[in-house]
Each structure stands twice: as C-alpha cells, then as structure tokens.
C-alpha cells in the first residue's frame, strides 16, 4: 500500500530532529546552523530569500557553514543571486543545482562557475515565472526567509519590504515544507500580521538587521539634457498620444526624467488627469513631485525603497498601506498587475537588433531577467479594454488579414535608449551579444529580455519608431535604423525609405511632434537634486547617506 502522506511524514521526521536541538519556534542565532543541519536533507530543493532588495543574509551565512559531507547537492531556487554566500554554497558542494531569475552583482562570478562546471542551471526565469513554478514543479522543501519582526507565535511582520515572502511561504507551507525566518527583532505584538504563524516553523532573531539595497533611487543631478529631451518626446509622442493612464516604469535615469517632467512639462501640455494616474511601481523618490502635484491616484509596489517609509506612511491615499500605516508590497501580485492591469511599460536596455529584440545580456556575465519581461510583453490573456490598449491594437492590425484581422488590443511596450552608451558602445547592433552568451553558457536559446514582436516603440534622442505601423521586416528594420542615430546600424539606413517612413508617421522626429530641442534643459525637471526631492516631500523623504550632499 502506498503511503500518500510521505511528505508530511518526512516533515515530521525533520521537525523531530530539530526538536532534539531546540525547543519551541523561537531559536537563538547561535543554534541556527545546527537547526539547518537538522531540517535539511541532501538533494533538497531550498529557497532562500535573495530578493531583488532584501536578503536573508544571516541564514545565507549559516547555510555556508554546513558540512558538505552531511548536506550536499541542494537544489537552490531563488529570485536573485545577490550575496557572495549564495555562490559560495556551490563552491563547497553544499548546493549543485540552481533555478533563479536575476543575478545582478554576482553575474560575472556566476558565469565563471557555470563554465567551470560548479553550477548546473535549471533555467533562468522572470520573477513571476519562478513564483509560478513554486506551485507546480519547483516547490521548495525548505524556505529561508527574512522579516522585520516576529512574535512568539511565529507571526511575521514583513512591512514595507514584504516583496517575495508571501509567495514563497505559501508554496512551502502548504506542500509539506518547512519555513525558517530570520527577523530583525522579536515583538510582543506586531504592527500587523503579514505572514500567519501557522505557516512558519522557526523564527530566528538575527545578530544584524537583514540587508536591504536601495535600488530604485536615482539622483536627479545625474539626469542629462539628452535624457530630458527623450523624456519630453516620450510624454508628448506616446503618453499623450495614447492617453496612458496605467503604467510601469523600468528603473533608470531615462524614466526618472519622465517622472520629474510630469509636474512641469506635462503640466504645461495640459495632461494632468489624462495620463499617469495609476502605477505598478516601487516607491520611486523621483515620483514625489508628481504625487505632490496631484498627478497620481494609486501606486502598487513590488517592494519598498529605503528612505521612503515615512513619506509613504503619510500618503495612504496613494500607496497600499496596512492598518498599521506602513507599506505592504508584494512582488508576485505587482508583477501580475504590471502584466495585466497596465497599458504601457517603458524601460531602457543595453542592445537592440534589427528586429527590435532587446537584450541586456553581456558576454562574461549571466545576469538573468528579473521582472522586466512580465511588464514588457503583450498580455495575451487580457480581455478588458482601455483607449490606449485599443489604439495600439488597432494600429498593429490595420490592413491585416487572416488570423491577425481579429480586433484586439495591445500593450504599449516602449524601449527608451540613447543610441550610444558609455565608452561609445552602440545600443543598436546587427547581432545581439545574447547569441554568443547562449553558446558560452550552453543555453537552449539566446536570452532575450523583450522580444521584438512585443516592442511597440523605440525612442532615442533621434526620435520615435512606431513598430505597430510597420508592415514588413524591411520596414521594421529601416524604422529601427531611422532612430539609431550615428551608430553603424543608423548610418547604414536607406535614406529614401526612412524619409518615407517619416512621411507616414512611422518615424517621428522631435520637431514632428512639436518638441523643441532647445527647451530640453535640466531646469525643466521638477527636482534637480536629492535635496529638491526632500523638500518636495516636506521633509518626509530621508535619503540613504550615499545620496546626501548637503
């Protein structure tokens, strides 16, 4: 007779081993490594909170202290490889297999270890994709998470940086897994309960507060005139043109410039109330002036942003906050919001090819995708209509026959990029580095961030290419060359075709949409430095030290 509860029984055995070392749910930091040794088994699928922002860093260190002779060949599933410890596990053999989404700071070391055969990558995902697999075929057996605080019952307060925790814990707790949380402090009563104690097996007060990275802060002092020009074109040529009310901004100085032009340039165009009312966005400090000027009705966030806590608490009309007053974020739900409930994604990239495929892959680094592909993709499962979605869809389908003749909306996916990056590297290339990286790292297909058939507009300092209006590969190629400036790709344009595309409005220059380049100065920014942002927030925004210069 088969035992249909073997996983539960096995969990019981693990918890029994733990009970011989610790009593109760709250475990002292000194016992953490021993606890891990008791509840883990070789070959386990383990999730550790390497989030985009917060890190269960204490638990990561404890994990590296295990004896690989006892615990080895773990299969790590995690959103982000952020800490050196995340890769140290593979060097010692404690872990051997990896499924993840993004590797940012560890991308170069990851590439080296993969080519040295120390890590077997299952797949690289987007965040939402990875969370989804936690409920299908990548369910964690043990999850190591981090929270701001816990009470004696194991309830967790994850607060403003809730991020990935709910998705991870739900998948683990309800499929016979074990959840261990490191917390910054124990409290008799939590401000609110983000994760119920029944879902949590152990809580460990860590010696230091867990690490959180301020990834979404951009100093306005670094925004250039060229970025102001592109922001003006974006607002007038796309936001206003389609009436974009619901959107996500990929983080960057280009989009920070757009946020800072809303109360000034966009205001002068009479656009308040007509664009940018609802956002799927982390609490960007650069959005403060627009919020203060009444542009923003709602912001739902993936995580928080260091220094923005008091400001968010004081703006509960706009942000999603709990009864305790602090932000509640959720990466999984915000990714879904960005995918289905937004009409536009706009973000930057490193390379675009002649089909509009966009990639951030660089040789010698395995960086992954993060969340951008979820926002930067048409939502084919979407059914509700908005004017922006219908207009984009109609432009794409005008004159089409066969299966493409069915009326349908389309999400605006805009790639905003200067034609040359640092060190005069062209952003437009004949062949993406992604192809070579795929060879080097033995990937099945080249890692593309945003596919060309999802990209609707490419915006550079030279103008806007509307790919929705292109009717052939050749038109698409020339439309892209026509905004690729003086890069080799741009210089090789067919001038007659590009002129024709411009006449048809497929390519628009700044002057075609009524943007005067001489107006593109930094004085158009609603805030020109960090201090302006602090002032705009009425002193509520408290930037991390590295951003202060007063």
């Amino acid at each position, binding site marked *: 007779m088969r035992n249909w509860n073997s996983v539960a029984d096995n969990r019981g055995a693990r918890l029994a081993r733990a009970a011989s070392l610790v009593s109760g749910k709250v475990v002292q930091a000194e016992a953490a490594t021993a606890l891990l040794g008791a509840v883990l088994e070789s070959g386990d699928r383990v999730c550790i909170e390497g989030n985009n922002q917060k890190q269960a860093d204490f638990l990561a260190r404890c994990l590296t202290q295990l004896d690989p002779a006892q615990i080895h060949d773990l299969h790590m599933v995690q959103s982000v490889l952020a800490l050196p410890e995340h890769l140290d596990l593979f060097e010692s053999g404690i872990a051997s297999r990896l499924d993840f989404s993004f590797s940012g700071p560890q991308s170069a070391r990851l590439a080296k270890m993969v080519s040295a055969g120390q890590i077997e990558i299952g797949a690289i995902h987007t965040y939402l994709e990875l969370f989804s697999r936690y409920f299908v075929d990548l369910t964690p057996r043990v999850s190591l998470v981090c929270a701001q605080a816990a009470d004696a019952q194991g309830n967790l307060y994850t607060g403003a940086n809730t991020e990935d925790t709910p998705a991870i814990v739900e998948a683990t707790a309800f499929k016979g897994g074990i959840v261990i949380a490191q917390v910054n402090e124990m409290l008799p009563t939590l401000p609110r309960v983000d994760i119920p104690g029944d879902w949590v097996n152990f809580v460990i007060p860590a010696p230091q507060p867990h690490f959180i990275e301020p990834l979404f802060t951009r100093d306005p*002092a670094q925004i250039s005139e060229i970025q102001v020009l592109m922001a003006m074109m974006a607002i007038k040529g796309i936001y206003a043109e389609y009436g974009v009310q619901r959107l996500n901004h990929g983080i960057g100085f280009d989009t920070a410039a757009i946020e800072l032009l809303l109360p000034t340039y966009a205001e002068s165009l009479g656009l308040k109330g007509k664009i940018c009312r609802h956002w799927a966005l982390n609490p960007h400090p650069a959005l403060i002036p627009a919020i203060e000027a009444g542009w923003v009705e709602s912001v739902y966030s993936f995580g928080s942003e260091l220094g923005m806590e008091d400001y968010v608490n004081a703006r509960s009309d706009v942000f999603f906050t709990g009864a305790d007053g602090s932000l509640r974020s959720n990466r999984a739900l915000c990714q879904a919001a960005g995918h289905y409930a937004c009409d536009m994604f706009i973000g930057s990239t490193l390379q675009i090819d002649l089909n509009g495929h966009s990639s951030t892959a660089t040789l010698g680094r395995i960086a992954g995708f993060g969340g951008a592909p979820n926002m930067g993709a048409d939502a084919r499962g979407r059914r509700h209509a908005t004017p922006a979605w219908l207009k984009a869809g109609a432009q794409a389908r005008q004159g089409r026959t066969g299966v493409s003749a069915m009326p349908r909306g389309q999400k605006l996916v805009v790639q905003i990029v200067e034609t040359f990056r640092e060190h005069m590297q062209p952003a437009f290339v004949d062949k993406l580095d992604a192809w070579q990286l795929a060879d080097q790292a033995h990937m099945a297909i080249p890692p593309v961030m945003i596919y060309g058939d999802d990209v609707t507009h490419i915006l550079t300092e030279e103008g806007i290419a509307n790919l929705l209006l292109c009717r052939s590969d050749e038109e698409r190629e020339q439309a892209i060359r026509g905004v690729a400036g003086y890069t080799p790709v741009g210089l090789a344009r067919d001038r007659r075709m590009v002129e024709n595309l411009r006449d048809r409005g497929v390519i628009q220059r700044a002057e075609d949409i009524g943007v005067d380049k001489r107006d593109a100065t930094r004085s158009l920014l609603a805030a020109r430095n960090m201090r302006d942002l*602090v002032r705009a927030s009425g002193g509520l925004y408290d930037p991390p030290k590295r951003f*202060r*210069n*007063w």
Partner: protein
Amino acid sequence: MNRSFAESTARERVTHLLDADTFHEILGPAERVVSPHLALLGVPSAFDDGVVIGSGLLDGQAILVAAQEGEFMGGGVGEVHGAKLVGLFKRALAAKPAAVIVLAESGGVRLHEANAGLIAVSEVMRALLDVRAQGIPVIMLIGGANGCFGGMGLIARCADHVVMSDIGRLAMSGPEVIESSNGVEEFDSRDRALVWRTTGGKHRYLTDDCDVLVEDDVAQFRAAAMGLLGQSLPLSLASMEAEHALLASRLSRYGDCRDALDIWQRAGVADPLRVPDMEARQMPALKALNPKELA
C-alpha cells in the same frame, strides 16, 4: 525662477552675477591662451584653460572677476590658469576696483602640471595679499559641486570675505585623501553627509570660516557680493595675532571633538542632528543664539 549656482557653468555664473551686459572678458577663449602641458599628456585643453577673467559692474561699481570652471580638470590650477588669476590681481593694483571677486571651484593644484601648478598657487596667494594690502577687498564665492580644496582652499581663506552656499565645500585636504591617508574609521569619504558636515558651507558658517551663507541661487550670491563691496579688512600684525588667538581658542574648546555634531552640541545648539536638514536662511538665527560659543 531660481538659477542654480552649482549647475551653472563658470561663464553663466559670471554673466548672471554682474550687472547685465557689463562683462568684458580678458584673455577670452578666442585668444587660445591654453595650457602648454596638457596636449603632451593626451588630455584635451580648454580655450580659456578653465578660468574666466575680466572686468564688469556690480551694482554699478567697477569690479574685477574670475570664475573657475569646476568641470574642466576639476577646476585644478595649472600654469596658465594660475597666471590669469595672478594677472587679474596685478591689474587690480592699477585699476583699484571696488572688489576682486573670485568664484572658486577647484580641487587645488592641477596635478598634471605638477610644479607649474604649485608655483602658480603660491603666486596667486602673494598677488591676492598685495591687493588686500592696498585696501581693495577680495571676495570669494564658493558654491560649486566640486567644492574649493587644496591650494585653492588656502587661497580662499586669504581673502577678506568668503560667501558660501550649503552645497559648497571649503577645506584643504579632500575627503578621499583623508580616507586614504588615515583610514576609513577616521573619515569615510563615502559618507557624504559626514563630508558636508565637515567641510560644507553650513559648518563653515557656524564656525566663522565663512561670512555669509546663501542658498544655491546666483541671485543670492550676487546680493551677498554687493553687500561686501568696499569692505576691506585690515591686513596687519594685529589682525594676524587676533586670528591666531581665535584658532587657539577654537582648538582648546573643540580640539577633542570627533564630528561637527559634537562641536555644535558643545556650542549649545539645541538640536544638532537637525542642522544638516535646515535651510541656509535659518542659519543666521541659529548662529545668533550662540554667537561667542561657536567662533
């Protein structure tokens, strides 16, 4: 609308500091008096070697002005740059303007030019003191993002008056130099709040190394400069001895303090932690509460 001093180029600062259309440039870019050293090192030159000098009117009064361009070589003083400053001071001896105004933004000696830069800095100091000895006031305006450091910091404190914005910084050694010489525990140069507490306009104003504190606004610098025209301070043995006494007293009172916060606290400032976030215009009132203590 407020015109940011920090974001303006040296030329823009001069244009908007002086009375409209009164600026006449000396040794302007078209004369191409450029550095004789940089090209040999494969470094681009600037047509004006990074400093704009000339004459003009401020509130109707004749003045001579120099403005360093902080974005070119960090505003570093090279041979030609220094010679332009020296020449300007020498012209002042003949022209006797209501003031010589220097918009200082510099890391000090331009290291690429090594000894030529060092010599230039000392010659500027001597020329400045000659001008002061004639009773012509020398006014320093410091508000650029790069601050006023090194030999230029020394020059600044040789002037009659120093006007700073709270973005401006004034010191000798730069933050990175202190950290690499004495370690990060002594001074963490990436702790920018610390850097500005230590060398920024607010602290300099509270401890009397800066006479007037303004906001990052060219118009406010202009008003402050206007207010200082004709106000030469004596350059005498007595004034030197008074300065030494002040420095000795400062050392005995605050020598063991580790941070500007400690100094402000000891001087009786009510809430030292709030000082960095206060606006420049609130500083005079704060200083007035503790006039003798802070000096």
